[in-house]
């Protein structure tokens, strides 16, 4: 059983007008096997929370703590966070020209497992992950995210989630831009990964439709840089009916 604990997290970014505070004190605790949905309007700071936990250099932590089983995540480099068990499925995965998916995945697995996976087993693992996400085998030879459609990028992110087996997966708007079929395939991948490894899931989304496939244990409403309401799955139904209007009025 692992615990990811966020306490009083305040984060700012540099802009031309100086530092702007985006996160204004976030408290959140996620345990293995739990699924937490963070829902909120655009610009509320949901993605900033995801990237701050992963260690993107653009964000400055001004106060607060993030710990994983007591270890100080904020002191770790980006790759150390991944090795500690954090995974971020990105909303806009980055193109890496000239680096094949196959090479990238094997390099990542080698880094995270501490040794190169045995070739035969690895090929089988990758093939199974690709088949279950309904990806063409030729995908492995393409360059990372280069020329991928929106749906392909998201499948690729979730394939990594299945292969890299983190303790905690943060999914940043994985549902955005997906049609119904792709949403179902990607969601099934998340559920499969969670069932297999009992990882904790932090699901960041604007819409409730992904929650039909990935059932949250907890729902947190995010507005103006902090969590403003928390509840169970029923809170999502309320958001579905009423939208975010009551949270964004100043």
């Amino acid at each position, binding site marked *: 059983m692992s615990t990811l604990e966020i306490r009083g997290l305040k984060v700012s970014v540099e802009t031309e007008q100086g530092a702007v505070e985006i996160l204004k004190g976030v408290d959140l605790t996620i345990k293995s096997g739990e699924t937490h949905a963070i829902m909120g309007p655009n610009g509320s700071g949901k993605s900033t929370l995801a990237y701050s936990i992963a260690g993107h250099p653009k964000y400055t932590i001004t106060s607060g703590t993030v710990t994983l089983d007591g270890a100080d995540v904020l002191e770790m*480099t980006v790759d150390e966070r991944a090795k500690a068990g954090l995974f971020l499925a990105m909303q806009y995965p*980055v193109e890496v020209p000239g680096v094949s998916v196959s090479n990238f995945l094997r390099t990542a697995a080698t880094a995270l497992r501490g040794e190169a996976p045995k070739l035969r087993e690895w090929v089988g693992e990758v093939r199974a992950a690709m088949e279950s996400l309904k990806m063409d085998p030729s995908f492995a030879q393409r360059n990372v995210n280069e020329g991928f459609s929106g749906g392909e990028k998201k499948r690729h992110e979730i394939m990594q989630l299945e292969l890299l087996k983190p303790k905690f997966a943060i999914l940043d708007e994985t549902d955005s831009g997906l049609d119904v079929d792709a949403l179902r395939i990607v969601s099934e991948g998340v559920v499969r990964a969670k069932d297999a490894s009992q990882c904790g899931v932090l699901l960041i989304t604007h819409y409730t439709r992904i929650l039909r496939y990935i059932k949250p244990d907890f729902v947190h409403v995010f507005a103006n840089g902090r969590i403003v309401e928390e509840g169970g799955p029923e809170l999502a139904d309320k958001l579905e009916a009423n939208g975010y209007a009551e949270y964004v009025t100043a």
Partner: protein
Amino acid sequence: MTTLQSNILENHTPTGREEAWRFTPLKRLGGMHDGTATPAERNSLAVKGALPTGATFAHQEIIAVTQTDDAIVNRIREFTTKGAVLTIAANAEISEPIFLNRTSFGTDTAEFSRVLIKAGNHSKSVVVLENTGDTHLAEDLEIVVEPGAHLTLIALQEWGSKTIHAARHHAIVDRDATFKSIVVTVGGDLVRLLPTVDFISPGASCDLSGVYFATAGQFFEHRMFVDHKVPNAKSRVNYKGALAGDKAHTVWIGDVFIRAAAEGTDTYELNRNLLLSDGARADSVPNLEIETGEIVGAGHASTTGRFDDEQLFYLMSRGINMDDARRLVVRGFFNEIVSEIGIAEIQERIMARIDDELAKAGK
């Protein structure tokens, strides 16, 4: 006089003020340009392994097939009328690459070397020039690609740190012939290469690619000139370079001339540079001169940038450490061209050398 025509130097010792010499540190040329070098005819170029059927190689008299105003090439031609000649017989289709290896004999004298590669009518071949060790080398390499022939020339500059190498690769490409050149420059103190293509008949095409990686103190110059003087010829130029370390300096010049007669020309040239540290300098000058509007296309692009933080973040967020992430990005950057070599052993060797250069450069 136009910029391109001003590249045509009068046959004198360059002063550094000429367009063709303005980037080159003349003092570091070992006197090969001004007559102060001690020239030697070393015949250092030899066939490595067995020569396949359809190819012959000899040291013999050479009658120049190209005109030039390059000061160094003219000094070579004044010094010797002999050189190495590789001939691919007409209609020969040679599947195995032909390896020509240059043994270096140190830097006490300068090797003044003439080379002629002749690809006969409708022949198909791949020639690999391997350059290693430390030497001073002035090289006049002429290439004749006869009608319908397909020649791939892979020129590898894997020199040691003391080498001074000035070379002109001048290809004459005839009707429906294809010349493909892949240049790799990853070693040497100073390397100045002039890949030059003359299309002499319609339907000819060339594909000039290159990669270079300069570290502290190294100067690598790649200066192309593609002369479209006949209709319906096609040229592609794609060079990629990385620089790391203090006073690493690269120069890429892409001169493409589309003369009035060259209707139906299709040309595109691209140079991309990756600056991996402060104190390095990449000059990149695409130069397109067009005398006719009746063309298929003509374009160029040049970019110089640093590591993309988003790429590094993405890779590191998957557990890959900073050094490995940088290595992946640099390998990926060069892969587009290195993978074109098509000889696995050489591709792996070049990538390993690139890894070494990157490691040497540190952070």
